[in-house]
């Protein structure tokens, strides 16, 4: 079955400026090009893993794919810009509880207009309550909802970010090395959460990771690796099947 693409990269080159720090302002800078002439289609509903060594441009590729940054050359196309983000960085605001962080987009931003009314009308989480409780239970974060991120484990925070993306009903979830600071059990648990989001909730997952391909094969449907300024497909469960 041929799946339709949701993100298409055509002849994309990624470059960025590296600045040498100074006292008041950068003293000098140079252009660094980690990827060149990339062609990649992200298919609807697939679990795509992107791996590569440190500094190879994985995160830059993810930022270009998600539209956070523009490519130096080439073209990026999206069927629909409906993105959720899970990252090694702390995308949770430290002054808010886990629950408030999950609902943050509903307080203001696009969701506040679209779903703010449902948030305010009912008990604790409004009409989202049933959905949320499902996610909370499924991803095991119901015990940390009233805690602040700083008091939770990295795995819990990553799962909370995943729940936020699911709650916002985003079609594509970008994950930038979320397993970075987790132990082996935590990484397996988090990858299973992504697998669950992919299979049970039908989300397209783009995972930038440094996990071993043998591990990734158990969760991702397709794996690519950055090599020599380009991408090499290292496994594809669809084609294998």
């Amino acid at each position, binding site marked *: 079955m041929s799946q339709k693409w949701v993100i298409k990269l055509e002849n994309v080159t990624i470059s960025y400026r590296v600045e040498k720090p100074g006292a008041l302002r950068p003293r000098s800078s140079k252009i660094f090009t980690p990827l060149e002439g990339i062609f990649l289609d992200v298919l609807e509903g697939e679990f795509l893993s992107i791996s590569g060594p440190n500094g190879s441009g994985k995160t830059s590729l993810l930022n270009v794919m998600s539209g956070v940054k523009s490519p130096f050359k080439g073209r990026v196309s999206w069927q629909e810009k409906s993105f959720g983000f899970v990252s090694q960085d702390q995308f949770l*605001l430290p002054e808010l509880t886990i629950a408030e962080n999950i609902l943050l987009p509903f307080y*203001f*931003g696009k969701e506040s207009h679209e779903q703010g009314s449902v948030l305010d009308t009912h008990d604790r989480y409004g009409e989202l309550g049933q959905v949320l409780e499902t996610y909370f239970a499924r991803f095991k974060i119901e015990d940390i909802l009233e805690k602040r991120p700083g008091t939770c484990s990295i795995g819990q925070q990553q799962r909370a970010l995943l729940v936020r993306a699911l709650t916002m009903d985003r079609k594509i979830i970008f994950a930038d090395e979320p397993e970075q600071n987790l132990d082996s059990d935590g990484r397996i648990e988090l990858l299973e959460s992504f697998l669950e989001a992919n299979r049970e909730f039908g989300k397209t997952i783009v995972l930038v990771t440094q996990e071993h391909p043998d591990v990734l094969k158990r969760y991702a449907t397709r794996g690519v690796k950055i090599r020599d300024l380009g991408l090499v497909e290292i496994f594809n469960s669809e084609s294998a099947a």
Partner: protein
Amino acid sequence: MFWLFGKRFSFETRKYTSGIILNAGVTALVIAMLVVASSFLSASYRANGQQGPRIFSIMATASTLDLSLDMPRTVNVTCGISDYYPVEKVLLYYSTDFWKSRVSVAGTVLSSNLTGTYYQFTIPLLQVPETYLYFLWANNSVGYFSYADNQHYYYSILVQNENASVPFNAQDPKLLHVIQSMQIGYGNGTTTRNPAPFIYVELNETSPISLVLNGNPSDSWAFTGNRIYNLTLPMDLTVGTNLITLNVDQKRIFSFNFTVIYSPVPLNITSMNFANNSVVYNYMTNMTFSANDLVQAHVTTTGPQVGTWNSTTYATSFTVPWTFGQVYGNYTIGVSINDHYGGSFTETYSVSFQKSEFPWIHVDSPANGSTVVASNITITANFTEACAAVASNLNTTTSTPIIQNVTNVTLPALALMNGWNYIQVNATNLANKTTSVLLRVNQVLYSTNNGSRDLYVVPGGTFHLVVNVTSLVVPNGTLRYALVNSSGLTCYSVSLNITGGELGYYTMKASIPIPLATIDMFYNYTLQFNTTAIIFNEDGQSFHVLVSYLYQDTEGPTVSEEGFSPGVNSITSSNYVTIILDLNDLTGVKNASIEYATNPSLATPTKANMTFTGEPVSNGIGDWVVTLPPYPNSTTVYFKVLMYDVLNNSASFTGSYSVHDVLNPNTDQIIPGVINQTFNKAINGAIGTLIAIMVMILSIFIVIFITINDQNVKREIFRESDRLFTLKHVCELSEKSIRHFYYIEQGLQDLIGYGIGIVMGFVVLAPVFVWIIKITLISWTYNFQTLFFLSYSALGSWVGLLLVLFVLSGLLIKMLQVDRHVAKMGH
């Protein structure tokens, strides 16, 4: 959005708490530095406006002293010194070699009055003729000094020959700078029998000189290569007036004329003890003869005793041992003299040496043992032969002048002292035989009116005896009485000093043993003191007085002494002022209160009670104190003290003091201007350097602050990148909204940080910093701190303005930094 503000505001308190701490410190440091800089400016100003002690009324014994036999060996110079600060040292520097060297003389204090302290310096006169130059120097405790040098011409004392028509060393400044000292023969214009006088010349530096005698120059009289010349004229002087010209070849030729009169007059001799054909009654040990030139003498004595005597040196006078012994008779004394130049002279004296008896004295008046009501006494006496008469008061060790060669005499008045005087009258005849008579005279100083004595008693065990003095023989004296009560058991001595010779009522006080516990019974109470008492004076006169009087205290307390702490001329706007009043009252001070205000009429005054600090507490006699709060500079504080004694008699006392943060302009004896340019430059240089260093520190501090702030903002914004990502890509807020969010958040946090920090720095930390600096400065510079005007409050207005500008600048910088970084991160 505000919901998120609230969450962040209570969560991230470290941002504005660190801002508060940082800005409080920055504010306090800035203010402290401004205060210190201001104080240095003040010090600089005051250093330029104030100098050392004032030296005035410089006087010497004489500016020109003539050479004579009675010329003083020293010269006294006096001057007055005054200064606001204590004067540490006063010196006189003098020179006799035109400042090639100088000698310092310390001053001794003669007297002090409101004008200043007067000092005396003694300059020894070592050599004549001579010019003494001097100036006066004084320094005070804060390091300033001044000197009086007569506008750089120096004060001078010129020692000159009294007969010289032109002063030997006239004070031609140019000449005086060349010829320092010169002696020729016996001095300019003097007469000599020496045809080749000695010449001594001292110059200020090595210079050729030449001499011209009576207009005849001689090559052999030209000398070079020395500064000091000891010369002997190779050609004799001519009889009469000789003109000698000294030429000094130094830059220009100075000619200096002087005259010496060469007069080979015959030698002459005079006996200083007896005349020819005279009778000598006295046994003498020496005979003295005086010649009109330097001579050697040969003396022979013939008669009952024979002797000879020869002098070994040349002199103008010589003393010969008396050779007559006690052998009386007629003698012939031959004196032969000869001088250096072959002159000789012989004189013969016929002297009769006769025996003498002791003279008799009869004192006509006063009678021995008499009483005199007079300040002095005149003694009349006669003698059996011509005598030298003198009277001495052995008690006062004073004597009358000696009246010579009288057989009867009324001696000048001799001062008496109160009481018995022992007067010795001496008569000495020509044979030096002296007879003495001793008299005893009693002087009574005063007389009083019998009916004018009065006695009353005051609490505290003191009775007052009032005496009407009707006549006095001396202006000052002591009245003495004894008071004996009628029982005859108790005797109290009473005395009173009378000054100024004024007649009238005098009150004598004496303590009587009345226990203090019973004092109160005397108020409004008649005291019976054994009915009568006997009062008698030292002259034996006695009077009975009734000792039964009513005492009542009707007067309020009085102020004996008023004082301020700090001193009334040293009160600044930072001082609490303690007023100290020494109160006095016959029955005791009960309480005292003060009203004070800054207007002379004491409208709407502040009131306070004064506290008694003396002992005993029971009667309140002594110091009462109160402390008033500080007042601003240039304020005059007026006060009125209300005082009550234990009988509720009241009295008031008014006063005032002024507040001066700079030197009190009412303080006199201050001279503006720094006299010593080097010292002035040193002070200004030091102060300027300190100010420059402080400005540099401040500048560096501001640069560091801006840099750190920029780094902080950058670091903060990078830390915020996750938040920006969340707001933009998760919450999908616009960049504009995010920027506004950060403007508001940063502005709010900075306002809290800057605002509270600056207020805390201004109100709390800065005064503490200034106080520490002030204490340190005072401890490090001893009295010098009085130059510094370390006032924190006075800087408030313009420091406040600077701080507002500082805050606004800081916020602007912060906003620009936030804008730059947010814009960068937003993209």
